[in-house]
């Protein structure tokens, strides 16, 4: 039986991809950021997950204004890195897991989450930067990936509660997959940042850390945070944090924090990173 063994929350700032691709991870600016991922890289190399359900947002790469899916699940064989205006990142293609992904897609639709199914798309920094942070620069990625893209660009994005509930449905769907699979779920994006308008550069470390605090334990109060609170407190792009709630919802009632890291700044952004494992459900 497939099972979710861990959840990871992680920023996906494009500059981190640039730093890794250009060999700058030891520079003064980047060292404290990459140092925070050393624990996780080591942990991942021991955990050896088979597949990651990777929740991210597409930044106008695969999806433009023509089609705006709220929740899209990638069921394809493989995904190439997108050219976001400066050429594609020099990273391996991302290998999908069509059998597992289609199982999730079918299960979620039957569980009343009406997913958009994507068979062909390119993936941008939102998906490839977290892979780099967790696995470094291998010849090929050591895991298969089910991309789960969330619209956080055109308003309204899904509510935090809906994201959490989707995570709960993913947990049920994973548990009904007959093959033995070690599955991790990652929620990416955030933390506080705003990259538009005169208010750009906003950072709210206190709010971010309170968010990180409440990801572990038995509380589910994060699901009730309103869009306007994310916007006011964490900047217009801080809304990406609703994607972390899909990850958290998929871990069950309880979650235990194994590792946590926070750093300001990376480019315009606060970097946050947390590793969680599911606790025992009371049910």
């Amino acid at each position, binding site marked *: 039986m497939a099972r979710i063994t861990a959840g990871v929350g992680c920023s996906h700032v494009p500059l981190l991809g640039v730093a890794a691709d250009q060999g700058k991870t030891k520079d003064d600016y980047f060292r404290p950021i990459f140092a925070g991922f050393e624990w996780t890289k080591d942990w991942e190399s021991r955990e050896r997950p088979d597949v990651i359900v990777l929740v991210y947002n597409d930044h*106008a790469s695969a999806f433009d*204004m023509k089609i705006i899916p709220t929740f899209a699940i990638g069921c394809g064989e493989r995904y190439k890195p997108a050219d976001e205006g400066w*050429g594609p990142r020099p990273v391996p293609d991302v290998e999908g897991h069509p059998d597992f992904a289609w199982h999730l897609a079918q299960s979620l639709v039957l569980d009343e989450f009406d997913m958009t199914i994507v068979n062909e798309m390119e993936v941008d920094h939102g998906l490839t930067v977290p892979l780099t942070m967790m696995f470094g620069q291998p010849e090929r990625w050591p895991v298969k990936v089910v991309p789960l893209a969330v619209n956080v660009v055109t308003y309204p994005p899904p509510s935090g509660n809906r994201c959490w509930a989707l995570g709960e449905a993913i947990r049920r769907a994973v548990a009904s997959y007959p093959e033995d699979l070690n599955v991790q779920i990652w929620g990416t994006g955030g933390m506080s940042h705003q990259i538009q*308008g005169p*208010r750009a*550069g906003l950072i709210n470390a206190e709010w971010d850390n309170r968010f990180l605090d409440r990801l572990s334990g038995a509380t589910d109060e994060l699901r009730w945070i309103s869009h306007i609170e994310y916007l006011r407190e964490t900047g*217009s792009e801080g809304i990406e944090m609703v994607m972390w709630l899909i990850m958290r919802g998929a871990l069950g009632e309880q979650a235990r924090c194994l590792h946590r890291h926070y750093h300001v700044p990376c480019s315009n952004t606060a970097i946050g990173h947390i590793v969680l494992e599911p606790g025992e459900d009371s049910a």
Partner: protein
Amino acid sequence: MAPIEGGIQRYLEELEDIPGTRVFTAARARQGYHINQFAMSLMKPANRERFKADQKAYLDEWPMSEDAKAAILARDYNRLLDLGGNIYFLLKLVSTDGLSVAQGVATMTGMGFEDYTRMMLNGGRSPAGQRSKKGGY
């Protein structure tokens, strides 16, 4: 279950209450459709080359206002946000110009890039007084 307190009108109203911010609502998405699709076209190297060779001619292929074209030529990103541009799309233009995300973003703040970088190194812009136009908190 009521998804949002006060209904959609109140929800949309609140999105306009944040200082120095244009939330990408449906109204802006409709207004800026062609600005954003133009920016999207710059993901293809051949289009970037053609745009760089003759920017005005490239823009004239798109059904957008002269106002929008002028804002693109001037790289006036705040104006482009006002006209319905979305930053994730506009960043394709920043990249086409060979600038980093932070360099492009800094142009919207009224600060020079050095000052902006220093602010970020010092912990970023505080949310104090930046949360609500009406509330002033």
